[in-house]
C-alpha cells in the first residue's frame, strides 16, 4: 500500500478494496460488517431505537487527550446516550484528502476501533471517499449511531421548578485544548481534552432515577446548552458561579485569550437536570463512575427569569447567560 492517500483509494476499485480489507475490516471485525454488503443487516431490537449522527472536522486531527477518531466515536455515542439510548452500532464515513498520510489514517482507524471496543459498539457499515488536494483538511469523519432506548421521556419539557442542575466535571477543556493544539496561539501547556464516552456515566445517572434531561455541552459550551433547556419556557436556571468547576489551566487560557469557559466546548462532560429528591443520589452515582468523579451541582431550576439562565457571580452580582452568538475569537480587548 502507498504511504499516502491518492485519488485511487476513493475510486471504488482495487485500492479502495485494499483500504477496506487491509485497514478497516481488520480493525472493526464483526459479522455484520464482514459481509461487506451495501448495508449492514442487524438483529431485531428489543425496544424503540435511538438514532443520531455527527460529523467531525477537528483541526488538528490529533490533540492532547484524543484525536478525530476517538472524537468521532464519542461524539455520536454520547448523543445516543444523552437521548436515553444504549449505543450498539456505528457507521463510519471517511472523507480523505489526497496526500493524507497512510500511517496517520491507520492510527485514526485504530483509535476508532479502540474507543468503539471500550464503549461496546460495533462499526457495522461505512464508506470512504477521497477528495483532491486542497479540497479538504486532511481527514473528515462522519459517524451515525444506533442504540436501543433504555430511558424514554428524557426531554427539556420534563424539567420542573426546583430541579437540580448537575455537571459531571470541569467545563471547557476540549475547546481550550484544541485551540492550543492548533498552534495558532503562542501558549503552551499541559491542557488535555475531556473527550471521553459517556455511556457508563449516563447509565449510572439514569439508574439513580429522577433524571429529566441529559445533554453533553459540546459546541457553545455549558451556557449555550443550558440556555436551550429553558428558552421559550416559563422556567429559568440559576447557576452559582463559584460551584462551576473550571480547570485552572482552562481558566488561565481563557483569561489570556479573552474567552469564557462557560462557552468553551466539552466532549466528555454531561449536564443532567434531575428531580430535587434524587439529585444527591444521581450525583453520588456519577461520582462513583469513571469520568464523573468531579460531578457537582451547579444550579437550580427556578421561575425567576422565564426563558433565561441567570448566573449568580462570585462577586455576589447576577447576570443573564445567553447562547453563544458565534465562534469565540481570541481577543486583546
Amino acid at each position, binding site marked *: 500500500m502507498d504511504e499516502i492517500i491518492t485519488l485511487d483509494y476513493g475510486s471504488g476499485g482495487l485500492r479502495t478494496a485494499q483500504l477496506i480489507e487491509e485497514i478497516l475490516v481488520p480493525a472493526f471485525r464483526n459479522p455484520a460488517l464482514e459481509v461487506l454488503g451495501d448495508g449492514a443487516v442487524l438483529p431485531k431490537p428489543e425496544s424503540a431505537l435511538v438514532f443520531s449522527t455527527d460529523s467531525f472536522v477537528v483541526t488538528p486531527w490529533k490533540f492532547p487527550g484524543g484525536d478525530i477518531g476517538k472524537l468521532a466515536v464519542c461524539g455520536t455515542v454520547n448523543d445516543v446516550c444523552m437521548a436515553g439510548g444504549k449505543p450498539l452500532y456505528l457507521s463510519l464515513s471517511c472523507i480523505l484528502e489526497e496526500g493524507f498520510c497512510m500511517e496517520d489514517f491507520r492510527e485514526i482507524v485504530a483509535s476508532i476501533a479502540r474507543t468503539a471496543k471500550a464503549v461496546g459498539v460495533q462499526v457495522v457499515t461505512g464508506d470512504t471517499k477521497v477528495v483532491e488536494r486542497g479540497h479538504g483538511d486532511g481527514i473528515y469523519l462522519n459517524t451515525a449511531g444506533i442504540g436501543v432506548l433504555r430511558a424514554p421521556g428524557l426531554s427539556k419539557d420534563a424539567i420542573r421548578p426546583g430541579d437540580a442542575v448537575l455537571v459531571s466535571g470541569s467545563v471547557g477543556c476540549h475547546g481550550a485544548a484544541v485551540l492550543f493544539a492548533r498552534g495558532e496561539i503562542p501558549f503552551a501547556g499541559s491542557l488535555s481534552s475531556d473527550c471521553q464516552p459517556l455511556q457508563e456515566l449516563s447509565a449510572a445517572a439514569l439508574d439513580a432515577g429522577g433524571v429529566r434531561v441529559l445533554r453533553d455541552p459540546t459546541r457553545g459550551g455549558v451556557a449555550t446548552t443550558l440556555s436551550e433547556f429553558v428558552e421559550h419556557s416559563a422556567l429559568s436556571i440559576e447557576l452559582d458561579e463559584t460551584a462551576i468547576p473550571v480547570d485552572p489551566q482552562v481558566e488561565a487560557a481563557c483569561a489570556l485569550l479573552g474567552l469564557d469557559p462557560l462557552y468553551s466546548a466539552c466532549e466528555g462532560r454531561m449536564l443532567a437536570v434531575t428531580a430535587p429528591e434524587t439529585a444527591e443520589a444521581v450525583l453520588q452515582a456519577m461520582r462513583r463512575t469513571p469520568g464523573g468523579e468531579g460531578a457537582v451541582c451547579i444550579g437550580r431550576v427556578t421561575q425567576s427569569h422565564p426563558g433565561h439562565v441567570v448566573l449568580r457571580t462570585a462577586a455576589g*452580582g447576577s447576570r443573564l447567560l445567553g447562547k453563544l452568538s458565534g465562534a469565540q475569537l*481570541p481577543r486583546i480587548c
Partner: protein
Amino acid sequence: MPFEEPFQHPEGIEKLLAHIAALSERTGPMRLMEVCGTHTMAIAKAGLKSLLPKTVRLLSGPGCPVCVTPSGDLDAVFALSERPHVLLASYGDLLRVPGSKRGTSLLRQRALGAKVAVVYSPMDALALAQKTPQCEVVFLGVGFETTAPGTAACILEAAEKKVPNFSVLCLLKRTEPALRALIASPDFAVDGFLCPGHVAAILGAEAFRFLPEEYGLPAVVSGFTPGDLVYSISLLVEQCAEKRPALSNTYTRVVRDAGNPAAKAMMDAVLTPCTSTWRGLGEIAGGGFAIREAYAAYDAAKKFGFSPAPAADPPGCRCSHVIRGAAAPEDCPLFGKACTPADPVGPCMVSSEGACAAAWRYRAG
C-alpha cells in the same frame, strides 16, 4: 495568583457597596463613566450593575478600539483585503465589525476568499510575514496606548530585520484628546471617570490628572477585578458626594505615576500624534497615532494608499451616542430587536467589549 485572587471578593466588600448606596442616596443620582472596554466587560461579567444602587449609573465610554474605528475605515480595510497577495493579520476583536454596509465584516471577506489571519500579538503578524514571503502581510494596528508600544516595537523589529512584505495599518488611538473632546461635547453629562488601568500602566496615573485639575472631574485609575472596581467606584462616589474631585490610583501594583518610560520612548520613536476620526466623536486633533516618516516603508497606509471615505452609521444605529455616554444601549431603538450579537448593526454590539454587546450578553439577572 497574588495579584488577582485576593481582589476577586475581598471580605466585607458588601459594606463598601452599602456605603456607595448610602452616599449616593444622600447626594442624588450620579453618572460615572468607564473609558475602558475591559472595565465594561469586567463590570458586566461580575454582575456589578446588579449590586449598585439605581442612583449610581455606570456608562461605557469610548473605550473599545474597534467601536471607535469609523465604518469608513473598515470599508477601506475590506477593499484592502481584496487586493491580490494581501494577507491581513488582525486581532480577533476586529473580525466581526461591520463597515458602513450591514453584514460586511472581515469574517465575510475571508469567506469570500480574502486572506485574513487572527493573531494575538503584532509579533505573530511579523512572524507570519517572514513565513509567507509571497504575501504582503498587513497588520491591522488597532488599540490605544496600551497596545501602541508593542505595535511600535514590532515596526522597529521589522525595520531591523528588513522584512519587505510586512506593514502596519496604523489605526491606533490616543485616549486624552478623545476624553477632552468627549467633555467638550454638548451632551456631556458625566460626574466622574473610572480611568483605564492598562493605558495608565504605559502613560502613568499622572496622565489623567487633567481630569480633576482642568475639568473638576473625579478620576480613579482602577484595576479589573470586582474588588478593584467596587473600591474605585466607592472613591468616585465619595469624591462626587464631597465635591472634592481628585486623581486616585487604586491599581498601584501595575500603574506607576509616570507609567513605563521605556514603552513611552519606543512609542514616541516610531509613532507620532495625528488627527484621527473617532466614531461618535468625529475628527479629533491628536486623537490618533501615525507611523513616523522614518518608518514609512512599514506604513500600510502609504504602501497601499489607504484613504477611507467618510461613511454614515447605519440608519437607526445610536452607537455614536452610546460611545459618548449620551445614550445607554437600551435607549437605542434597535437594541435587542434589529440589533443583537448574532445579527449586529453597529460596532458596540459586535465587539465583545462593546457597550451594547456587554449590556445584551450580561443583562442584569
